[in-house]
């Protein structure tokens, strides 16, 4: 360390009071922070820009890079979106996906809240192991379960029905939500519950009137997570649903819109874009909850 840097030390220390390190300043800061950050943002968001711009491009522009600048649209059109909405089952797929995701989320949240409460608050012999089992359940990926699950779904007579998805999605939603909620319940002071108990509240009253309202941000983020994970799910929906009109958006866009040799890129991109918007909107409203809960779950 040079003397110059040493002289600057008190100044640096002062800057750090908010807990964030200032690595550099001035033009150097531009090169080391803003430039790489901008590149990251551009690269991470480019596919969505490309998706959006393709969705509103007329075919003439789509396949002619010589006359038109591919990064821009000269004469935007809604034809691709119209075709998607009125000539395919897209609205039906959206509805199906929405229904499946909502029901699976509600079912999983209900089970997870109770399980997390039992594990974290009603300390019992072996609660630690139940917690561990749930964590391990989260590590079992759908890729190794879908084949036996398909035979099970078939035996239960659920093949090609929305119930096949509603009942199988909780296998990855419950472990995740429970794990998140355990962390959340932990952050709520136990004394609050003890006070209520001394006042004569039953355990259910405590859960319903004290713990749950306090855990609301955690519940919201677990709900958003569960909803988006269901929306995103692919392999079960691909394996268990056969009828075109019962498919979820991700599966349907890939299997129903891609037919034959000619890809309708405009409609495909419109389909991908419209399927992304609901979850993206949901997140944008709750991103702070989301980051807070992630921080909460990661922090000890």
């Amino acid at each position, binding site marked *: 360390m040079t003397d110059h840097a040493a002289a600057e030390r008190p100044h640096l220390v002062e800057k*750090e009071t908010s807990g964030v390190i200032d690595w550099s300043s001035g033009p150097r800061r531009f090169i080391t*922070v803003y430039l790489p950050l901008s590149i990251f943002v551009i690269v991470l*968001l480019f596919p969505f820009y490309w998706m959006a711009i393709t969705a509103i491009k007329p075919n003439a522009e789509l396949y002619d890079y010589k006359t038109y600048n591919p990064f821009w649209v000269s004469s935007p059109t809604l034809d691709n979106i119209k075709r998607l909405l009125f000539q395919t089952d897209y609205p039906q797929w959206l509805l199906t996906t929405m229904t499946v995701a909502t029901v699976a989320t509600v079912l999983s949240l209900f089970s997870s809240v109770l399980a997390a409460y039992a594990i974290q608050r*009603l300390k019992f012999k072996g609660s630690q192991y139940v917690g561990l089992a749930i964590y391990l359940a989260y590590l*079992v990926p759908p890729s190794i*379960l879908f*084949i036996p699950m398909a035979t099970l779904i078939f035996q239960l007579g659920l093949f090609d029905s929305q119930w096949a998805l509603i009942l199988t999605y909780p296998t990855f939603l419950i472990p995740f939500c429970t794990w998140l909620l355990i962390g959340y319940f932990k952050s709520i002071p136990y004394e609050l519950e003890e006070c209520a108990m001394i006042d004569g509240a039953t355990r259910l009253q405590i859960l319903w009137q004290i713990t749950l309202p306090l855990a609301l941000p955690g519940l919201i983020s677990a709900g958003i997570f569960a909803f988006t994970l269901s929306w995103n799910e692919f392999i079960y929906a691909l394996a268990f649903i056969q009828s075109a009109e019962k498919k979820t958006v991700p599966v349907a866009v890939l299997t129903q819109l891609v037919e034959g040799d000619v890809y309708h890129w405009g409609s495909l991109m419109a389909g991908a874009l419209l*399927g992304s918007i609901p979850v993206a909107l949901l997140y944008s409203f709750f991103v702070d909850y989301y980051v807070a809960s992630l921080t909460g779950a*990661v922090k000890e």
Partner: protein
Amino acid sequence: MTIAAEARTTHHLPQNWLVRLLDNKSCLIFLCLLPAAALLLIFLTYPLGLGIWLAFTDTKIGRSGHFIGFENFTSLMQDRVFITSVWNTLLYTGVATVAKFALGLWLALLLNNHLPFKSLLRALILVPWIVPTVLSAIAFWWIYDPQFSIISYVLVDVLGWRTSYIDFLGEPWAARWSLIAANTWRGIPFVAISLLAGLQTISPALYEAAMLDGANAWQRFRHVTFPMLMPILAVVLTFSVLFTFTDFQLVYAITRGGPINSTHLMATLAFQRGIPGGQLGEGAAIAVAMIPFLVLATLFSYYALARRKWQQGEDND
């Protein structure tokens, strides 16, 4: 009070009886765990066991199979496509994980600076991770189009670095790298945000102390940031390895294992053989072959857990 008398009072006051039952701790614990346990046992534990059993049978769709021992596994060992899929899976997981963590850590460090519009930035950066994988995979499919790829356009027509368009998904190696790039792109936000959360838990006092001891930026990173980040890094790494290793969506959406089965991962091959191919037993055997790798990753995670008492430290309460 006799049992009969107690029965009578409970009969008269069903509400009270229910409340008391729910206030009984072991009963409440049982009821609380019941929904989650029932769903997980029926739809997770049972299929897991069934899958392992199926791997040792010659079950086909619509026909129950017989126990055939290790036959599925021995035939897979001589199956070129299977061997390729194992190598692809290892390559895909290895390269994508290293790239995701290097870039994700870099991004987390960048985001940990004083920045304007911090929460907007975080929201934007999360987008690739939020949007359904298959839908962004379809965008990549279009970006990788042999004739109309925007990457080729930039390289050939704008920058003039190449003379011909790249056939991203038509050649085995080009297709593999394209898939790895797409997976890395999708994984960076999760790694970055998780590590950012970790970075923010590091006490600034540690950096002050390090600086007073004369540590430079690299030494502060190496001796303060990195060790403090290690527990989170281990857990995020386990998740990342696990989910990259068992990835299905991205490959299925972009190449479906092609060209000529050269980009199959174990998961996509299991699907192809098991569901459209109808060979449930063989598909299950491929899926089961992933388990040893997953167990290794999980043990690694458990080690991290034990060290950190992650999410279950009883001594806090």
